[in-house]
């Protein structure tokens, strides 16, 4: 039943839209569609972004691995390489700080009425993504595959049952959030 749902293109577009609406709602209510809060995180004066992200990761990880163990979901880890992930990640970080939004929150910021997010952020991202598409053949040959390590996950690397990683990591991340609250971050 799930497979035919996954293959139904029209229904998938609607599901994407509905998940997006909830996502935008939660991002806005969490405060992370606000430039001041994102810059506060990057200046290490406001830890709202980390709190939203880490709690999403803890809950998401437990649920998605449970769905997978029950046979209801498959993982889709992204492939990576030093040339793509590290260099791309560092360029991304500069853009993150200069714009003050990331690709998801910039869309939320537009919904909240921030015009710099619309005419600067969205327009810039479309240009940047287009530029990358034009340069892709060259980058692909020269840089993107350097230090390729593939679609590997930590449980696969360690060759252990995923829950051996999931449970302790969930505990560590919860402890980290608890500690952050305790020291007043």
């Amino acid at each position, binding site marked *: 039943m799930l497979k035919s749902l996954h293959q139904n293109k029209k229904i998938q577009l609607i599901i994407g839209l509905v998940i*997006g609406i909830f996502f935008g709602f939660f991002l806005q209510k969490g405060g992370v569609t606000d430039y001041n809060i994102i810059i506060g995180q990057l200046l290490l004066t406001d830890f709202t972004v980390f709190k939203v992200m880490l709690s999403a990761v803890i809950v998401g990880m437990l649920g998605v691995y449970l769905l997978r163990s029950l046979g209801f979901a498959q993982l889709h880890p992204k492939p990576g390489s030093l040339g793509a992930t590290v260099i791309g990640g560092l360029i991304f970080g500069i853009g993150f700080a200069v714009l003050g939004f990331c690709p998801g929150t910039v869309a939320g910021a537009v919904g909240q009425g921030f015009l710099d997010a619309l005419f600067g952020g969205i327009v810039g991202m479309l240009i940047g993504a287009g530029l990358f598409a034009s340069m892709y053949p060259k980058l692909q040959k020269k840089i993107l595959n350097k230090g390729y390590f593939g679609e590997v996950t930590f449980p696969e690397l360690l060759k252990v049952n995923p829950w051996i990683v999931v449970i302790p990591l969930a505990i560590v991340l919860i402890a980290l959030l608890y500690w952050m609250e305790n020291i007043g971050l």
Partner: protein
Amino acid sequence: MLDWLFMEQWSPYIAGVGIGVLCWFAFLLSDKPIGCSTAFTRSSGMIEHIIHGSKVNEKLYYKKFTPSIDWEVMLVAGIVIGAFISSMISGVFQLQWVPSTWAASFGDNFSLRLIVALIGGILLGFGSRWAGGCTSGHGISGTLQLALSSWIAFICFFASGVAAAYFIFHILGG
């Protein structure tokens, strides 16, 4: 009873838990992790298609990511709608050009902020496709799957973001 729907801001933990639960539904109902940056690739391709015609589809990168409306484009459209609804019902929706933190260091000239935001957007669009994902695709969906690539990306996003923000606000704006 529904007061919480109209609150200006929730605890970040509640919002985070909500996003975590959404990730379950994305995997269950769509067999996909939540991500945002390929939507910008596809949209950029669609715009280029209007300007330059079907030559665009021959570009190698657009063979990987066909310029068409897909699940992720709908997701990003949904984010705009969801944030609009949330900010309208709590009364915080407001058209605004220059954020206050920026104005405090660099003044409230809107064209300066617009140019800087545009440069930031270009770097962000370029960097997210170079890294193969953004703060959602790598930062949340990838890390929760325990993908090595995503944990490395997450660390690079924030290491470089913190350094760049320090440079902008404490050196240029200090």
